[in-house]
């Protein structure tokens, strides 16, 4: 735990710079309504996010100069919401904190964010689909950067919730960016509503935590204070309804932990709230890269890590998280195998990788989760941006069956995509290898119910990762070209503003892993490296359970070997199936057509929700509540029934009074008033 805090006045500019850019765009779009030149738009937006990145770096430089135990920068603006007194005083500050955990997130968000802003310039330039689309796009993108940076810098739960909902809003706006297509607008709403269901968990968790702290005499929602007083509420028991399994008495931290995890499930697309992510690919590709791969979807993982002290004390909740993550990882990997849309494959891949991160936090390896979060941000963003280049080259064709052999047509895109695929598959020595290895090691050593199976499932999923990624790679870039001849001849790599971000991300995808060079390897002494696993050491002061004893080195080497074998097997299988025996996939598909059908239908989860939840709810609302109770019972029977009987009585007397002449009414009113006053004054 970090104590004390150093004032750092620039901190609030990290989120506010993009906010001001977004507001400026908003005013230009809504109030001024003049077309602004492309250059000015780009200058405002990219300038703002670059400024955020620069300030983040400055804050980082300032922070690392502090000793390990007091690495905390704070910046307090004003009290946002405050009410209540005494032991119930509720107060939310508009205040930011920058500790190692926030630092990692901030650098990733503003860094990758800046790259994607630049990439978007080229990507959206030709887009004429909607009115003032270019500027509107950058407005939303800036607004998103603001919300995401606020989320990771907030020093309390309520302010974090502001960012949490804010990124949801931007996700909604950007998924439905091309709103003239009904499906896009639908996908946007779906994402927001599913997220709202998750947010229910966030809110309830927050309220429960606050009320417990208030009862202990420390009403607070600030992270630092929650951690400080956490010991006093760690053993509180809650009585919940007896029909819940395992009850009726629960440890409150488990309940709080699960509530927050429901929120995390929504944001990070975990079972059962994963259904929105594939549909979210309706948005422009840079959006998918930034929001639905690199940053927003990792907010759930960040939340759990932020509350790591709580989850470390809540083993039951952690076990549920680990297994949910594992099942999501496996499901995502399996579904990615049968998708034919290049972006959907990557969407399921994202879902699967997020599952890996949740396995890590569930096993108490918070540093490993954060490590994979960071490397995944580089790798997945790289894959998405490269996919965006492919889509541009293919003139907005996304079906991989229509691609193939693009290696020679768009060589730069090809190389960057290959690097991304290798890295994410966990091939040595790319970044993904190190981070995934750390998670597998954690899963192996975890004291979670069904632990060995958890590890085996994750190992298999790691193999599947390589398989689906290289299926994608071989189908898109190798083999015979399946695109129409005319299109193939016109294909070219994207312009410089789009390629440079790809190169930078490729570099990160290759080398970022070294930050988390495993301790076990460093001890071998093969490589001359100053400090092994500097990433985990950097985060250690703010994450719980960092002092835990690791596995014996021999076991770790064995696990690493298995991970390498899994990646090689997956890659090799893909190479053999899609390059050497290109007819086999088709044969396999037709002999398992039932299974294939189930997978393509995504296990009918959407349909099941429709039948079990949405349609009954609408039917009940419409038939029972609206037509039955409202119109039938209350209005039809009671109100109008009474009215009818009275009218029948008074039909002849009253109708002359209702002349409809307003002057007459007013005159009568005046006479009446005068009469009453006169009577009273008598």
């Amino acid at each position: 735990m970090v104590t004390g805090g150093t004032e750092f006045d620039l901190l609030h500019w990290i989120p506010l710079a993009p906010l001001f850019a977004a507001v400026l765009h908003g005013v230009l779009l809504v109030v001024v309504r003049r077309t602004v030149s492309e250059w000015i738009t780009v200058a405002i937006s990219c300038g703002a996010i670059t400024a955020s990145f620069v300030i983040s770096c400055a804050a980082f430089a300032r922070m690392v100069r502090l000793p390990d135990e007091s690495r905390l920068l704070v910046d307090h603006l004003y009290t946002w919401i405050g009410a209540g007194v005494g032991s119930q005083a509720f107060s939310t500050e508009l205040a930011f904190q920058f500790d190692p955990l926030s630092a990692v997130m901030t650098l990733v968000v503003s860094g990758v964010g800046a790259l994607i802003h630049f990439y978007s310039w080229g990507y959206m330039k030709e887009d004429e689909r909607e009115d003032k689309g270019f500027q509107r796009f950058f407005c939303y993108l800036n607004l998103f950067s603001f919300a995401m940076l606020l989320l990771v810098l907030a020093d309390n739960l309520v302010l974090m919730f502001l960012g949490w909902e804010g990124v949801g809003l931007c996700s909604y706006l950007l998924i439905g960016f091309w709103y003239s297509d009904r499906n896009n607008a639908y996908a946007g709403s779906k994402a927001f509503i599913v997220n709202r269901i998750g947010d229910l968990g966030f809110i309830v968790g927050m309220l429960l935590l606050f009320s417990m702290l208030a009862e202990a005499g420390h009403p607070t929602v600030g992270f630092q204070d929650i951690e400080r007083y956490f010991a006093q509420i760690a053993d509180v028991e809650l009585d919940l309804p007896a029909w819940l399994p395992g009850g009726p008495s629960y440890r409150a931290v488990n309940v709080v932990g699960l509530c927050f995890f429901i929120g995390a499930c929504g944001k990070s697309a975990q079972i059962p709230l994963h259904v929105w992510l594939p549909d979210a690919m309706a948005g422009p590709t840079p959006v998918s890269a930034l929001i639905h791969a690199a940053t927003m979807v990792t907010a759930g993982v960040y939340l759990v890590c932020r509350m790591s002290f709580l989850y470390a004390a809540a083993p039951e909740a952690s076990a549920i998280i680990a297994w949910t993550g594992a099942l999501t990882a496996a499901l995502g990997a399996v579904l990615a195998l049968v998708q034919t849309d290049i972006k959907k494959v990557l969407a399921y891949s994202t879902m699967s990788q997020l599952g890996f991160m949740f396995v890590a936090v569930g096993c108490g390896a918070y540093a490993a989760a954060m490590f994979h979060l960071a490397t995944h941000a580089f790798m997945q963003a790289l894959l998405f941006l490269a996919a965006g280049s492919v889509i541009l080259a293919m003139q907005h064709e996304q079906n991989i069956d229509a691609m193939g052999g693009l290696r020679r047509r768009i060589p730069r895109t090809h190389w960057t995509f290959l690097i991304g695929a290798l890295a994410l598959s966990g091939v040595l020595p790319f970044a993904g290898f190190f981070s995934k290895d750390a998670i597998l090691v954690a899963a192996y050593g975890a004291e979670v119910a069904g632990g060995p199976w958890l590890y085996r499932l994750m190992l298999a999923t790691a193999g599947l990762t390589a398989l689906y990624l290289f299926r994608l790679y071989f189908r898109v870039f190798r083999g015979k070209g399946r695109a129409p001849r005319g299109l193939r001849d016109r294909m070219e790599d994207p312009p410089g503003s789009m390629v440079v971000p790809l190169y930078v991300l490729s570099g990160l995808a290759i080398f970022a892993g070294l930050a988390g060079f495993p301790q076990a390897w460093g001890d071998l002494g093969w490589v001359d490296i100053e400090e092994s696993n500097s990433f985990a050491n950097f985060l250690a002061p703010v994450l719980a359970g960092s002092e835990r004893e690791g596995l014996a080195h021999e076991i770790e080497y064995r696990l690493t070997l298995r991970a390498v074998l899994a990646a090689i097997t997956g890659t090799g299988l893909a190479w053999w199936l899609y390059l050497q025996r290109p007819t086999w996939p088709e044969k396999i598909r037709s002999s398992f057509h039932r299974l294939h059908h189930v997978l393509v239908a995504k296990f009918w989860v959407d349909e099941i929700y429709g039948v079990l939840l949405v349609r009954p709810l609408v039917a009940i609302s419409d038939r029972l509540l609206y037509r039955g109770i409202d119109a039938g019972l209350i209005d039809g029977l009671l109100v109008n029934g009474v009215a009818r009987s009275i009218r029948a009585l008074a039909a002849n007397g009253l109708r002359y009074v209702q002349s409809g002449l307003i002057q007459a009414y007013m005159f009568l009113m005046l006479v009446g008033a005068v009469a009453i006053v006169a009577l009273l004054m008598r």
Partner: protein
Amino acid sequence: MTAFVDDNLLLLITFLPLGTALALLVTNALGSLLGLPRLPTQVWRITAVAGSILTFLLALQLVFVFDPVSTRIQFVDHREWLPDLGIHHYFGVDGISLFLVALTALLVPVAFVAAWNDIDSRLRSFVFCMLALETGMIGAFVSLNLFEFYMFWELMLVPMYFMIGIWGGPRRIYAALKFFLFTMFGSVFMLIAMVVLGWLAYEQSGSLVFDLVAPPGMATPALLDVVVPLSGDAPWWKTQSWLFAAFALAFAIKIPIVPFHTWLPDAHVEAPTAGSVILAAVLLKMGTYGFLRFGLPLFPTAAMAYGPWLIGLALVGIIYGSLVAMVQSDVKKLVAYSSVAHMGFVVLGIFVFNVEGLVGGVLQMINHGISTSALFLLVGFLYERRHTREISDFGGTAKAMPVHAAFLGIVIFASIGLPMLNGFVGEILILMGAFLHSPGAAIVAAIGVALSAAYMLWMYRRVAFGPVEHPENRSLIDLSLRERVVMLLLLVPIFWIGIYPDPFLRRIEPSVIEVLRQVDRRAEPGTRSDVIPPVREARP
């Protein structure tokens, strides 16, 4: 001059609108006596707008001069009127009524300007109704004599009735009558309970009393000194339970609490835009305001005893209103049902009897007033252009009316409680208060928050997005300057309360604590809630 204005601020704010209306009426009458032509409608309209803007400026002055630290009633104006009957002219504001007055004074000119083209017949009568209505609403918020409050309460009814009945849609007569009878039905019970209350005072102090509290510095008897017997030791019609029930019925119909809500959708659908704005933004608040001002302090034991039931009804309203809103095909009806849900939040906040809940409840009254009236205005703009409010008649309006779509988006997100916009601040405080009182209630209410996103976004998607299917929607004209200015005016409080609510909360909180202390003081020992805080020092 300024001294005069400052001394009579409340009187001016309350009666300036009616004064303007009467002046116009008299000028008109005098003119016709002299054989001159009638005043042109344009003069009526401009004078009315000017009068209401002046009222709003005075209300702003009121907010600025208001002392945020004091828990007392401010700007007290107490004059003897009918002393034998205990009826006095007694005005005053505290943090609870302050912003409601300001809200009313803001929305009347907004409604006037927004409905510039909407009303094309009987404009003079319309102007008269609106201004009389404004006096009625503000008067009800600042009256601290129960009888005077009742007068203003009833005064509001008549212009609103005409508003729906004359300028309304096809089923306007039915809707107007329904509105009138529902409200009258409740008011009658309140009137009877009021007389009983006065009688109780007479029995105890020897004179009829209707002043709620004694004006500062005066030792006159007041209603809050009257002991209202609990059930058992008095005839049933004198007991707290029955008196509270009578008041509660009147308020519940006005709010409206399920199952007394069915007048609201009809009234909204039929009323002209300006009427809907005033109805949703201000008239509904009379009910919740009445609970806070009279219901809770006068009958604290009964209020606490009935509290769980009212919380229950509020929760039913939140879920029921949201679900029914989800299946509406008429935009206005959808917004009307969403009002039922949102007002459920306010009721929930009031009956959890703690500072968070009450502050949140008061703030949510303001929030709902702003965002719902903005929604009605935006729906009205669409209606003016297309003469339909069926959701299925729209689709893709963002293409032709991007500015309208942008405003609609902001207001919708304000209404579903997106942080940084006003709705969230009120909702989170209410949820916080509710959770401290009973966690289950807070969880149910939080489900309502999730549902609100479902019905609002569903509507937004079908109205603004998707392909343009009806050719009429292709050539829609985007918002005019007048319409944009009105909307921007409403966005100011939406963002202000969302980003920096402290100036509002700071003024509301002391008065809310005062209400809780009144409740605490008058409640039977043993029934009092233990969450009522001591008087707090002013926040630095």
